[in-house]
Structures are given as C-alpha cells and as structure tokens.
C-alpha cells in the first residue's frame, strides 16, 4: 500500500522517505522474517542450488542425455562410482541405455523447472487476466468467468491435465515431437491452475475498484485497461506471488506425475518424472540408482519450493504477524 502513496506523492522529501529499493527491502519485515527463519533460509538455499544446477546443466553435465549419439550401450547399467563395479565418469551410474544418471538428473531438473515455470506463467497470465476482467467489469462477464472457475475447481488439476493431454493426442495424432509435447504439458498445466489467480485477483480488484484513487484515475480519463494494469494490479502482487510459488511446486509435481503415468515427456527426452517411471522397472532387480537419484532430486526441489512458499505466505499475511 505504501508504494501507492509514493507514486502519488510529489513532495520533495520523497527521496529521503524512500531510499534505494534494496535498502528498502533489507529494512522490510519480509527480510527480517526471512533472516529469522532458518527453514526459509535453508529452503531458499536449496531452491537456489537447484535452479543453479538446472541452469548450468549443459556445462556441468558429463554427457548430454538428450543426444542419442552420446549414449553408448556398452556403458549401460553401471552402478554408482563408489560401487566396485562403477566406472568413471559415471558418478551416479547409468541406465539401461548407457545414459549417465547424473546428467539425466541435471537435465531432468532443468526440464522440470522450465515446464513448471512456463506452466506457472501461462496459468498466471490466464488467471490474472480473467480475474482482473471479472473483478473490474463485474456483471455477466464476472458471473460467466466465475462459473467456469467453479466448474473447473470441481476437478483436480491432474485430471484436467490428463484430459487435455488425451484430447490433444486424439485430435493431433500421437506423433507429436518433443517440443509440441512440452507445449502440450505447459498448456495442460496452465489450464489447470488459473482459477486461484483469478479468484484472488478478482476479490482484490473488487475491493480496490471502489477506492478513491481508482475513481480519480477514471475521472482524469484513464482507460480501463490502463487503470487495471497500472494501478489495480500492483496491489495484488503479494498474494499472486505466493500463489505462483506454491503453484510452481504443484506444476512440477503435475509434470512429473503426467510423465510418470506415461503421458508426459518421452523416454528419449526424460524429465524427472519420466526417469522415475523408467527407473521404477528396475526397483526389484537391484538397480536402485536409476530411480533413487531422480526421486531424491524431485523430492528435494518440490520440498524446498513448498517450504519457501509456506514461509512467504505466512510472512506476507498480515493476520499472522
């Protein structure tokens, strides 16, 4: 709310009242709460590490697991390096195609994060847009959007994602290339998660709509889209950010689940979920490393993001302070 005041304030001492953004952040309650919570710091560190590893995957992986030319069948089914049968450079062993598990996990992490973030972006845009429209204009449009949201909310996201996937496959044929598959999953996730954004944004907008500054903006002749995006939207960034963080974890889980169920990413371009699905076959035969490491990576990533989201929600919730 204070940011709004700053924008409106023309006073010369505004400079003094609002130092640099960084300083403002460092002095904020958010930062304090972060420094006080060891769990949040740990989760943040793990998340950062995962993002870093995912980003650096092409440079730090010993192998590109998506390039079939680099897979050597003769190196298949090797255990991790600390096992007597392990072979360098396969630190975490290899799978049945000679794919280096470490590289596959790093690339899988990258893919899972990309799909997750794209899914969050798509659902965010969709949800915020519809929420703004519904809340600002109200009336029949609002009723329509919110009814659709109600209907949608009756279904778990995974069910919607599966249906979207199945319908797309029936319509376009199943010979989609990997990029189209990724796009399909992103769209499935986007369509599954927009409702919470829409509801949150809508309720905030309905509150803001009646406020003086919006009326004032309307009076000076600003158009509705401008008012919505420039003035109303900034007020809902907090809750939207919380939803986005939690939804990132959900999106990653959804992608992994789709891949695990066999309708996600193919085995030639494995995400963490696909790796777990294929590795699951070797659970009984003692080749545990094929499933264990992707599982640990996925669990760590999701847990860290969830913790971060939890903390963020509490920290941004004035009722709990």
């Amino acid at each position, binding site marked *: 709310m204070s940011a709004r005041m700053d924008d409106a304030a023309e006073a010369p001492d505004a400079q003094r009242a609002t130092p640099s953004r960084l300083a403002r952040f460092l002095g904020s309650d958010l930062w304090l709460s972060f420094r006080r919570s060891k769990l949040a710091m740990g989760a943040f560190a793990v998340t950062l590490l995962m993002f870093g590893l995912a980003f650096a995957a092409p440079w730090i992986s010993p192998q590109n697991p998506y390039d079939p030319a680099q897979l050597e069948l003769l190196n298949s089914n090797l255990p991790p390096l600390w096992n007597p049968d392990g072979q360098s450079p396969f630190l975490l062993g290899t799978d049945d195609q000679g794919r280096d598990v470490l590289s596959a996990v790093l690339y899988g992490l990258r893919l899972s994060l990309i799909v997750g973030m794209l899914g969050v972006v798509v659902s965010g845009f969709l949800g915020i847009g519809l929420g703004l429209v519904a809340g600002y204009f109200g009336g029949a449009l609002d009723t329509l959007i*919110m*009814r*659709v949201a*109600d*209907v949608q909310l*009756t*279904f*778990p996201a*995974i*069910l919607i994602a*599966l*249906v979207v*996937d*199945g*319908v797309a*496959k*029936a*319509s376009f044929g*199943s010979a989609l290339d990997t990029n189209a598959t990724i796009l399909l999953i992103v769209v499935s996730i986007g369509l599954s998660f927009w409702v*919470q954004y829409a*509801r*949150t944004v*809508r*309720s905030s907008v309905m509150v803001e709509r009646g406020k003086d500054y919006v009326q004032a903006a309307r009076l000076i002749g600003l158009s509705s889209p401008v008012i919505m995006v420039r003035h109303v939207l900034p007020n809902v960034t907090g809750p939207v950010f919380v939803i986005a963080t939690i939804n990132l*974890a959900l999106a990653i*889980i959804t992608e*992994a*689940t789709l891949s*695990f*169920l*066999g*309708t996600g990413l193919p085995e030639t371009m494995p995400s963490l*979920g696909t790796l*777990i699905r294929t590795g*699951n076959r070797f*659970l*009984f035969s003692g080749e*545990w490393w094929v*499933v264990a490491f992707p*599982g640990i990576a*996925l*669990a760590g990533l*999701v*847990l860290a993001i*969830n*913790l971060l989201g939890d903390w963020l929600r509490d920290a941004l919730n004035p009722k709990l302070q």
Partner: protein
Amino acid sequence: MLAFLIRRLAQAAVVLAVVGLIAFAMFRFAGDPVNQIVGPDTPVSERAEIRKSLGLDDPVLLQFGRYAGNVLRGDFGISYQFRQPVTALLAERMPATLELAFCATLFALTVGILMGVYCALRRETVLAKLFQAISLVGVSLPTFLIGILLIFLFSVTLGWLPSYGRGDTVRIGGWTTGFLTVSGLKALILPSITLGLFQMTLIMRLVRAEMLEVLRTDYIRFARARGLTTRAIHFGHALKNTLVPVITIAGLQLGSVIAFSIITETVFQWPGMGLLFVQAVQNVDIPIMSAYLLLVAAIFVTINLVVDLLYTVVDPRLRTSVGRTA
C-alpha cells in the same frame, strides 16, 4: 429458502451440463469415432454407413441432445479398447475405487485427528515437531513417489505387504469386496496410506490450527476458570468444536480422494476406475474418458450440494451469501 434451494440446484445442473458439453465435445470431436470402431480394412462405403447409423452426420445440437439422453439413461457408449459398454466397465471397477477411497479417508481421519490433537496440546515436544515434518513431506511429495517408496520398503525390502492389486476378493451381488479376506485387507494397507497421506496432512494441520484457535477463545478460558479438568476442556469442548469442520472437509475431500486415486491405482495396479481412466488416456479411449469426467463431476457436485444445503438449514445467514474467496 425455496428460492435458494432452486438456485443451488440450478447451479449444480448448469455445472453438470457444462461438463456434459465438454464430455460430448471430447466424445464427438477428439479423433474420428468411426475409425475407432471399425477394423482397419473396412471399405469406405461401410464406414459411411456406420457414420450414418451412429448419427454422426446429424446437426451437432441434435447429436448433443441424443448424447445427453443416452447419458441420463446411463449409456456412455462403447469403449474403444474393450468393445464393451463403458457403464458396465465403470460399474465393475467402482467397488475397488470406493473401498480404497473409504479406507484412505478413514486412515486420514483417525491418524490426522490424533496427530493434530497431539501437536496442538504438546506443541514443543520432539514428537510434535516430527509430526509436523511428516505432514510437510506428505503435502509436498508427489503421490507416486510416496507409493514407490512404500513399495520399496514394505514389499521389496521387508516383503511384508503385497505391492499390487486387491488380493482375493469376495463377490456379493454386483459388488466385489476386499474386506473379507486376509490378502484383500493386506493389499489395502499401502494404497490407502499412499492415497490418504495428503488428506491426513490436511486434517492434521486443520485440527492443530482449530484447536489452537479454540483454546484461545473466551469460553475455554471461562471453562478453565470454572475449574473444569484439562481433559474435559480439551476433549469435551475444544476437540468437539474442532471436529465439525474437520469432518466436513473430510466429506468434501471424498470427491478428490476418488479422483486422486488415479495415481495411486496406477502405482499399485489397483483395478479401479482410476486405472481404467489412465489406460483410457494412454490408449485414447475417449468414451471412457468422458464418462469418467462426468462421473467425477457428478460426485463433486452432489457432495457440494449436500453440504451447501445442510449449512443453509443450520445457518440462515448463508442463505443469501455470495461466494467469498480466500
């Protein structure tokens, strides 16, 4: 009151109609139904005839009307994979899913309430912290990973519990049950835990939060001041007041438990509706997909409707309430 009732019913009907429309659109437009029915070497003329006999050339509105009529009569068409009526297939699989959902909910309620109460009353103990940590894991980890972990631990390593299927079942009329055999009961344990873990976490957190809130309220303080025993306060007043929303949520969640069983059933090869649905997605068996979608929608709508109506009977303020949001 009556107006509200009618409006609620109308809303439920609208929801079902919209889902029905989606289901119909899937059924009709996702892939060519004729291609799915005939053998690969069927000549074009024969295909045209089938197209006509199925009414695929009629106006879309008429087709939707026919589809809706069929659905209302319980006819969801023929599965492309099994060449059998979808209704029969779903009915055959339903007991497995319902029994699993029931056990999972039971597990979630008992364990969740116990852990929640403990966490609220003994907030600082190690055990409470452990419960909190478990709840975090339960909420965060993907269901399939938990299932695999349980299988690895209890089936592969220890060999205590079966890793797949329902074990021996007993058929009573049209219902097959796993409750009456030892192997059936053993087979229920791991899938129920996997499926119920998330709800358990939810309930545990809810019980804890509600208990803490209630314990802060005036009437509890008053009760304490009156000299009631701690036990009476905790269990006679605090817990009792907590349980109502908890049980309501468990009821509301029953629908999502049924829907979530898709994943659990796949991991444990549980022969229920969810596994049927996943196989349908993999094999693009649209009639099963659309029927399942409608079924889940119907379950959700019914549960919500019942809860809504019961509330209004109790609390007049809600009769005209608009949907509040978080």
